């Protein structure tokens, strides 16, 4: 699937260079932040000698040495606990989960310590926990998770889930510089499939700001990560049918950019949320509640959802395809909503 994104590369007037993959954008962000700030360190499984399971940290051990690129035993709880401790002593660790599915092994560390420390004993933990997430690559039930909502429900954290190389790099850099614990989800389907030109100069993308990827007037499609691309493809198709869809990329799930969502809804009056996460408890439900609370009188139709089914991610490719949202499902929902 050829994907081209068009991030705000020109926005800051920087000079653009060659096409960069999502994966490379992540690597660049870590590299540049480590160059910039000696307090930034990496910690995770196989990130040093092996360069990371997806090669996101390739070359970093050679450049920054074993004291700043730390290979660990297979214990996510220990990785996050250690990162948290290091942050108390002034470092700014980036902890990698080899697959984001296993972040739940560190659930206690993240939700009980990292997220609460600032509130309970004035101990903010400026750490970033990042890792490859998402399905569509036949990874099966243990290597395809979208666990973002466990953490969106946890006050004290920030949760980022970008969809383009430009945003991935800019948001990861912003995350490293943020004094709060930030979870950073990287959709592995996008790792090598999306490319774009990135500015040479240092830049960040603000956390907590959604972006309108496509202007439209008949309905708003809200999405993020891999599904953002699916939504844009659907919007292009809808345009041929005379349905003009606005597409919003959330980019940050916590804090959620309610204003961008509301501004769009007030224009289109109809809203469809597309996410790869399962349906129950997904961000779509939260958005529905926000719209009801803050813009009930602007709704000209029900909020609709296109999401994964409420099951684990299946192994069998045919079942996985059935399980995941896709362009056809988005089109069907969008047409129904437009007609409503």
């Amino acid at each position: 699937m050829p994907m081209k994104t068009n991030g705000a590369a020109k926005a800051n007037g920087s000079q653009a260079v060659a096409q960069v993959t999502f994966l490379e954008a992540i690597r660049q962000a870590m590299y540049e932040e480590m160059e910039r700030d000696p307090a930034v360190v990496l910690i995770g499984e196989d990130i040093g000698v092996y360069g990371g399971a997806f090669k996101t940290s390739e070359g970093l051990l050679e450049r920054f040495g074993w004291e700043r690129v730390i290979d660990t035993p297979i214990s996510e709880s220990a990785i996050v606990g250690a990162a948290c401790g290091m942050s108390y002593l002034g470092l700014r660790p980036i902890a990698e989960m080899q697959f984001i599915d296993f972040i739940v092994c560190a659930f206690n560390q993240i939700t009980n310590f990292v997220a609460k420390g600032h509130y309970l004993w004035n101990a903010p933990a400026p750490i970033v926990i990042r890792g490859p997430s998402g399905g569509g690559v036949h990874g099966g039930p243990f290597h395809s998770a979208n666990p973002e909502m466990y953490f969106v429900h946890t006050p004290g954290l920030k949760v980022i889930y970008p969809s383009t190389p430009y945003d991935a790099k800019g948001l990861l850099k912003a995350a490293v510089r943020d004094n709060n614990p930030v979870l950073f989800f990287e959709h592995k389907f996008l790792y090598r499939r999306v490319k774009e030109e990135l500015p040479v100069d240092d830049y960040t993308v603000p956390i907590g700001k959604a972006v309108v990827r496509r202007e439209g007037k008949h309905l708003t499609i809200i999405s993020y990560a891999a599904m953002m691309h699916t939504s844009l493809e659907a919007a292009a198709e809808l345009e041929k049918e005379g349905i003009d869809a606005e597409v919003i990329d959330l980019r940050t799930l916590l804090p959620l950019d309610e204003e961008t969502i509301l501004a769009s809804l007030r224009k289109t009056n109809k809203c469809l949320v597309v996410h790869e996460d399962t349906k129950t408890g997904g961000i779509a439900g939260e958005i529905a509640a926000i719209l009801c609370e803050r813009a009930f009188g602007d709704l000209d139709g029900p909020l609709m959802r296109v999401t994964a089914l409420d099951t684990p991610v299946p192994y069998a490719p045919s079942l996985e395809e059935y399980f995941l949202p896709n362009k056809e499902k988005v089109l069907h929902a969008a047409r129904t909503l437009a007609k409503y």
Partner: protein
Amino acid sequence: MAADVVMPQMGESIFEGTITKWLKKPGDKVERDEPLFEISTDKVDAEIPSPSAGVLKEIKVKEGQTVPINTVVATIDGASGVAATPAPAATPAPAAKPEPPKQAALTPTPSPAARPGPVAVPTPQAAPAVAVAPAREGARIHSSPLVRRMAKEHGIDLTSLAGTGAGGRISKQDIEAVIAGGGAAPSTGGQRGDLAAPPTGTAATYSEPASVPTPPSRPATVAPPPVAPAPLAGGGGPAAHGTQYVPALQLAVPRERLYFGNYEVQPLSVMRTKIAEHMVASVHVSPHVYSVDEIDMTKVAALRAKSKAEFEERYETKLTFMPFFVKAAVNGLRAFPTLNASLDGTNVVLHKEINVGIAVALDWGLIVPVVKNADEKNILGIQRTLNDLAERARSKKLRPEEVQEGTFSITNPGVFGGLFGLPVISQPNVGIIGLGAIEKRPVVINDSIAIRSMCYVTLSYDHRVVDGAIAHQFLHKVKDTLENWSEPLV
């Protein structure tokens, strides 16, 4: 051929009716039995179906007007099926109890065939919305929060629009087309008090009412505003038969003292006007006295809790506390018949039937349907009747006789959390019971404190007929029945 449509007689003692709303416009096609207009009498509000099929030619009685029964209110052209419907149309049979119109009005006829169907589905551009009014009271208007808000802001009556959205839903495009095409054009006018609020404001924030009577300008030139267009314009006099005329709507202070600061003026609905007249008359005629007793509902509550599931499963009707109170009141009325009476001059009319009126709160007012011969019914019979009456009260499907001939009433402020209430007597009764909320309270039993489900029950009674001694004995009988409940439920 043309056929006349007449104001139907909605009950024996009813001699006139007010047209509250036309559901069709001249030129509209109507099917036989399709709802044509809504009326309000002093007993009920009802939707009147067309006596025949054809095209509505002329409306002779406007909304808000009150006319005697059998007055021709409209004509239908090319009327087919008139012969087949000897009912109300052609024959203005005076007075002599013509039940038919009522029958026609109340047989539930929403056959799918009567739906406006696919006839008018204009393309969004071509003929947006405005057209036909399939508006059927009772049938829901499908729109959206946005559309309702825009309708309110622009004073547009949604019942007059036909939508082009899925399933005939009124969409944003539909209402935008109406607004673009000249504001509130298809609205039924200010009669119903739709406020034309400025487009941005909400009712709570805007400062000047855009339409409706102009009140005196601030430093008061004491030019009192034109009287609000009284919906029952029928002469301003005794609109309601059976209620002695009392100037219910008089002001206690000069009118200019009502208008200050920011406000909004809404005409009183016909129903509210009737309630106002009835309440003023009741308080004026009957010297009200109030007695209160406290009833231990623990036993009934336990019985109800135990039997509820089985009861509801077996009889498919929900079980509330109300039938227990009705039954207890019946026991009390049997023992003290002077409370089951009316006063006619120097005669007390002792009713042999025990017909208990139950106040049903509606979103738009209040109505008191009657459980007839309550003394002949068991808990199941009372409960079924109650649920049926309440449901039809809410859907405006009550028959006039169902709100008549009550001999005693019960109202339930407790359902809204009231500790107790002191109701006004529903005339021509001489007593009404008010039920407080049932809640657990500490009570002293045999010198120890126990937690019991307690309920304050009040009796308002007409002191011309009933004295305190009787009233309290009656209440005690009610209390005794409930506290020593023995009748099984299932």
